[in-house]
């Protein structure tokens, strides 16, 4: 459990000497509690306090980087079991699996898909992350050749899947400096695997059935000098995965079993419904997900889910700005402007639906603030409204230029009219009155 500011304050020297950069020990304690400062900034801490504070601020799950260059990414360094307690920080990498028994063309085509396909949602580019190459042939030559093919097509993070160290060794000749993730060290082969990983400074997946076995293996690999580990509990069903993954996360963040403090690996191709495994991996703590190349539909849904789960749930609930339809509005339907605070949006939408007057809702981006606060804070202003009108092409949707604004935004009406050239009608303050308003004001 995270320490409260006051608990931390009690451990501080209470000198208020400002050397940490904060005006008082109390404000420093507040920052520490919020994870916004480093314990070391206070030079006057005694050893015991340092030990207590250090332990509680060090991430319980190790940060592991995969790949190098533009598409490289990091996983791990998570702090919570439920995202509502803070947030999840490092989204899982999704890797399309290819095999060294496939043709070069096939391998290369999949690689190019991952390289090129992207999908833009709310301003960010959503992409799958890399290629997982399986040594199905069992030969090191074919494996090495396939790696070469992948490398030729793109600089993507890789997972190299083989139980044979000599195959991996051969593959690493081609990509050893690019930090591929090696899969997998087991109880039997971990010494050689560790040697390989260490030599190329690559992250390594460890694989075992059972958490105690995994923890044991992690400890042994760490002794061999490899700490960038990822854990594969090789689940036999979705049920096994969720149980194991939850247990690992819980035991790691509570530091009950610190040896489980590594990101989790999931091979979704093992499941008979791959989509289910991916969805589950995303919500339940997987950090590397290997899947057969996904259809467009599955990829979009999976990436959207991943984006959703890895947004900060504590930010005010926002709607995406845009032009929303209520019913099937025609060219003469009213356009109502509102803010992107979701409660405002949903309330208004609810009332609008019950009026049964088809209309448009123009949702502008007030960063999730309500009408009242966004007007007060100056976030809601005429430029924002103008930009939204243009950006969402409202003029093409309706044959009039009348905009209904919320009652609380009344002070802006003049300026909006000036800037947009639209006629502004001031609606009611309370969404509950919108029906009546539309009946009386719009209809006439």
């Amino acid at each position: 459990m995270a320490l409260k500011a006051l608990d931390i304050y009690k451990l501080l020297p209470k000198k208020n000497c400002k050397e940490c950069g904060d005006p008082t020990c109390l404000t420093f304690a507040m920052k520490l509690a919020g994870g916004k400062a480093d314990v070391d900034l206070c030079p006057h801490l005694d050893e015991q306090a340092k030990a207590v504070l250090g332990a509680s601020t060090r991430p319980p799950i190790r940060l592991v980087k995969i790949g190098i260059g533009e598409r490289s990414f990091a996983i791990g360094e998570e702090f919570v079991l439920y995202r509502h307690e803070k947030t999840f920080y490092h989204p899982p990498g999704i890797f399309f699996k290819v095999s060294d028994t496939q043709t070069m063309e096939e391998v290369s085509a999949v690689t190019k898909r991952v390289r090129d396909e992207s999908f833009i949602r709310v301003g960010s580019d959503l992409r799958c992350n890399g290629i997982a190459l399986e040594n199905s042939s069992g030969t090191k030559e074919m494996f090495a050749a396939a790696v070469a093919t992948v490398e030729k097509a793109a600089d993507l993070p890789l997972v190299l899947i083989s139980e044979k160290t000599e195959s991996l060794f051969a593959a690493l000749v081609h990509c050893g400096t690019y930090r591929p993730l090696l899969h997998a060290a087991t109880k039997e082969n971990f010494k050689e695997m560790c040697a390989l990983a260490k030599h190329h400074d690559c992250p390594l997946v460890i694989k075992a059935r059972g958490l105690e076995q995994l923890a044991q293996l992690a400890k042994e690999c760490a002794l061999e000098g490899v700490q960038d580990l990822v854990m594969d509990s090789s689940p036999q069903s979705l049920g096994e995965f969720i149980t194991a993954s939850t247990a690992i996360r819980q035991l790691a963040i509570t530091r009950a079993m610190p040896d489980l403090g590594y990101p989790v690996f999931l091979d979704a191709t093992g499941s008979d419904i791959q989509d289910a495994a991916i969805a589950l991996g995303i919500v339940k703590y997987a950090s590397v997900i290997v899947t057969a190349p996904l259809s467009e539909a599955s990829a979009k849904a999976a990436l959207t889910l991943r984006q959703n789960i890895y947004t900060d749930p504590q930010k005010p609930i926002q709607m995406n700005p845009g032009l929303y339809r209520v019913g099937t509005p025609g060219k003469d339907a009213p356009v109502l402007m509102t803010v992107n605070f979701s409660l405002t949006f949903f309330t208004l939408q609810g009332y609008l639906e019950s009026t049964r007057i088809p209309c448009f809702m123009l949702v502008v981006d007030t960063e999730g603030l309500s009408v009242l606060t966004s007007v007060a804070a100056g976030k809601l202003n005429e430029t924002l409204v103008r930009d939204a009108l243009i950006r969402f092409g409202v003029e093409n949707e309706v044959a009039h230029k009348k905009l209904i604004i919320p009652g609380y935004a009344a002070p802006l009406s003049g300026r909006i009219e000036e800037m947009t050239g639209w006629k502004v009608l001031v609606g009611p303050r309370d969404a509950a009155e919108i029906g009546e308003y539309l009946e009386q004001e719009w209809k006439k």
Partner: protein
Amino acid sequence: MGSDIRFGWTGAIGSVILGATRSEGGTRKISYRVGGGTTLPFLDHAPASSPLVALEICDEPQYWPQIVRNYCGDLVDDVSAWATTAETVYGADLIRLYLTSTRQRNFSDIPLVGKAVEEVLSATGLPLIIEGSNEPGIDSEVFQKCGEAGEGERLLLGTAEAGRYRSIAAAALAYNHSIIAQSPIDINLAKQLNILLREIGIQQDHIMIDPYTGTLGYGFEYSYSAMERIRFSALKGDADLAMPMICSAIDSLTIKEVREADTAYQDEMAVAWEFYAGLAAAVAGAEIICVRHPKTVGRLKKAFTSLKTGSDPTGRI
């Protein structure tokens, strides 16, 4: 070293019974006890039951997503046939009937509502969820009518909201049905509504929470955590949140990504959207997942089966 997950829960999710068989005083082929979980979803060693999948249908298809109308064809014009198919072909566990006819302007043909409910009851043996009107002016009559038409069948009636719960509660109380309590993506609002319902006499085992599910990309990020928090608080012992949850990401089939998908994979896109949202919602704690695309039903059911076969995480399989 113990490596079991110990959360130290002190509470459990209550259960709600839906549907009544002949021996229970109704005419359903099956009845369900929904809820009853004692830990996070799918971690029960002896799971109470896996989530149920409900197919949503309606009695006035002009208000229904085009994709479903295309996929189902004429079926949507015959609510009884639609209900029968939902059970026999699509494999739904439950049917959720939206009385969309009540959304027509100045709707007043209350007996029609009763007729629709009766028709669907006789067309299927599955327990029913009935969505009544959206209009405070006719709420009371509509809910009374639904309640009466389904008397003895232990329906699940929807939807009570903080500003509109008295008429639906009255109907539920009068005919012993359960109700859906919906609040906009917020644990506190969900709890408040449950308290309000409790205070006018609705038993806890007659309430299902609908925390409102924004679909993927459209509010799901909040819905997911709202559900997780509700489940978490319930397990921590908050009785006012210890009701099973129902989830319906109804916008899934009308959002841009699906609406504008190439017609060749529009169905696939719709199903993927419903499926990912539905599965994630179940993992967050929803016990009934409602979908509109018939093809999503089977996929979700299959996934839930695979999820049920959990094992001891310690390796002592």
